[in-house]
């Protein structure tokens, strides 16, 4: 086996390298800590591969520009942090409604409002699900290491293209600014998914046709298919509608295309769960501490395991229930005042005690803190 190239990268840099590997050729963004290095890396590396970088006047414009680029068939991305993610919600909603693939990186910091620009947080997990108004289904992924960031960014692009939807990468300040050696895969080593293009001629093309998997083929602008795209609720032809039946068809399409194919999106890392009586559920940088804590606890004979959520949305209710079936207690460790814990409670039967371990002072959860919590609950 040929030895892979390795690079010393920051989390934000790994995100950009993974994105370019996945086919990113258009980035629009606005500087914001702690995500700025993503924009800086794109400004430097994208033109080298024939891609484009533009610094927009704000996050509203950034999100709009990447959707505009994606409409032409180009893979596009933006990156921001909490305050910018709030501003982007308007046009993220447009991408959900119009089913335009794109990737949004949110390097989380403390909030609300300007909050803690340089401090870590995981308090935007619910915003990634319910951030924009209306009914829709969301996809969000969360890496926990610098190397993960590379591969999860590829996965985010693949999911965006496969499901014709915006995908959020929930990074956090710790991983984004951490540096580590990252193996750089050869071309072809990872599967790259591209959106399905229509095979029908333009005169027979139905832009939002209901297909077997609810995802409609999407031509790029300028490829001979002149069609209409609108954020108004639309029928399969793409034109706005007030007809109750057509409204239901559209909203069901947004729901079904993800709900019915969740298995393609779900990704969890399960560690030491076979005989575990207690489990840590975590995601992002906290999962690092969880792995360490479990390894230490196991060395003294405690039956504890971890479940790391790579896919945050859609939430893996059924899988979690299955994996935790033998547990008596589940500790949900997260850097917020309690967000994903509510989903874990919804997932698990009442006889499993779901306990919080939360930190929201801008600092990380350490393995020691996890072990202390473990001692407390045993």
């Amino acid at each position, binding site marked *: 086996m040929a030895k892979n190239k390795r690079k010393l990268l920051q989390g934000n840099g790994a995100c950009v390298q993974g994105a370019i590997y996945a086919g990113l*050729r*258009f980035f*629009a963004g606005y500087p914001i800590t702690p995500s700025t290095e993503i924009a800086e890396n794109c400004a*430097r590396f994208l*033109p*080298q591969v*024939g891609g*484009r970088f*533009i610094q*927009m*006047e*704000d996050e*509203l*414009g*950034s999100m*709009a*520009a*990447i*959707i*505009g*680029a*994606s*409409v*032409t*068939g*180009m893979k*596009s991305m933006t990156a921001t942090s909490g305050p910018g993610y709030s501003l982007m919600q*308007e*046009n993220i909603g*447009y991408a959900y409604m119009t089913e335009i693939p794109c990737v949004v990186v949110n390097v989380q910091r403390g909030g609300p409002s300007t909050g803690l620009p340089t401090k870590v947080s995981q308090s935007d997990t619910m915003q990634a699900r319910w951030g924009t108004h209306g009914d829709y289904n969301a996809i969000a992924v969360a890496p926990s290491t610098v190397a993960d960031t590379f591969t999860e960014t590829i996965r985010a692009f693949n999911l965006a293209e496969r499901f014709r939807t915006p995908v959020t990468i929930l990074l956090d300040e710790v991983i984004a600014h951490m540096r580590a050696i990252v193996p750089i895969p050869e071309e072809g080593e990872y599967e790259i998914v591209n959106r399905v293009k229509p095979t029908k001629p333009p005169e027979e093309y139905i832009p939002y046709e209901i297909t077997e998997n609810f995802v409609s083929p999407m031509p790029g*602008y*300028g*490829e*001979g*298919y*002149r*069609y*209409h*795209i*609108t*954020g*108004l609720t639309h029928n399969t*032809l793409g*034109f*706005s509608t007030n007809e109750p039946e057509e409204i239901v068809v559209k909203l069901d399409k947004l729901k079904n295309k993800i709900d019915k194919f969740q298995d393609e999106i779900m990704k969890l890392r399960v560690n030491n769960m076979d005989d575990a009586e207690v489990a840590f559920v975590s995601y992002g940088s906290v999962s690092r501490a969880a792995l360490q804590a479990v390894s230490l606890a196991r060395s003294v004979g405690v039956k504890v395991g971890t479940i790391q959520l790579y896919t945050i949305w859609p939430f893996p209710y059924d899988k979690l229930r299955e994996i935790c079936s033998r547990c008596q207690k589940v500790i949900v460790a997260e850097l917020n005042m309690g967000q994903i814990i509510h989903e874990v409670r919804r997932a698990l039967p009442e006889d499993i005690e779901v306990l919080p371990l939360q930190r929201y002072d801008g600092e990380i959860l350490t393995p020691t803190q996890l072990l202390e919590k473990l001692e407390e609950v045993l």
Partner: protein
Amino acid sequence: MTTVVKQKSDVMLNYLRPKMKFPSVWCPGCGNGIVMGAFIRAINKLGYDRNNMAVVSGIGCTSRMPAYMDFSSLHTTHGRALPYATGVKFARPDMKVAVITGDGDALAIGGNHFIHACRRNIDITAVLINNYIYGMTGGQGSPTTPSGAFSTTTPYGNVEKHFDACNLAIGAGATFVGRATVYHYPQLEKMIMQAMEHKGFSLVEVVSNCHTYFGRLNRRGDASAMLKEFKENAVNITKAKTMTPEELENKYVIGTLYVNDDKTEFCDEYHKLMDVAQKRKK
């Protein structure tokens, strides 16, 4: 005569989506239809490949226009047409990109995007239909509502000052700026052609009538009375240059107000940058 009329309507039908979208949402007599006619005739005369053209809009009465026309049409969010169009144009610089927008869309909620699109001098043509009021939501004051004018949110007269879209565009760096009215539609058609052909950011402001709200609330009469008022109070730029500010009070200065062919265009400059970046990589 009938042949000419038929030929003209054939052109319109060819560019419209008659089975899909009509009747339009616009009130009878709305200036938007005149602008759409001028836009279609302009594109037809320019002979552009329709498959290589995108028409982008935001939200409002005016922004419904792309849905009726058989181009690649992108009806986006309120105020954001220009950044969406920037994404399309920057990704596909070979495509012709036009934005259809209104005074509220472009100058209030989209004001920041408007000045930055001008500043970048990206090769997009913005047709800004200015009817001095928010039509779709029912007649509220806009950034172009004149001081003292009535709207549903200025029931005692507007205490604010208004924007001059053309001056704003010139100040922000646009390189083709013109104004026409819906009465002067042959001039409008020609101006859209010039703007589309201009390399760089171009603005065509179209003074238009919302007789339903602006006309009614300000006793300007019906559509034809408002068009007559545009005819009477329009002053060509050449003549306007000889007039005093007092004489120009309440006049519509029309014509090509500003052209700059020397300024570099954004996508062109970026392509040069790509060459530099690729050489450095090697």
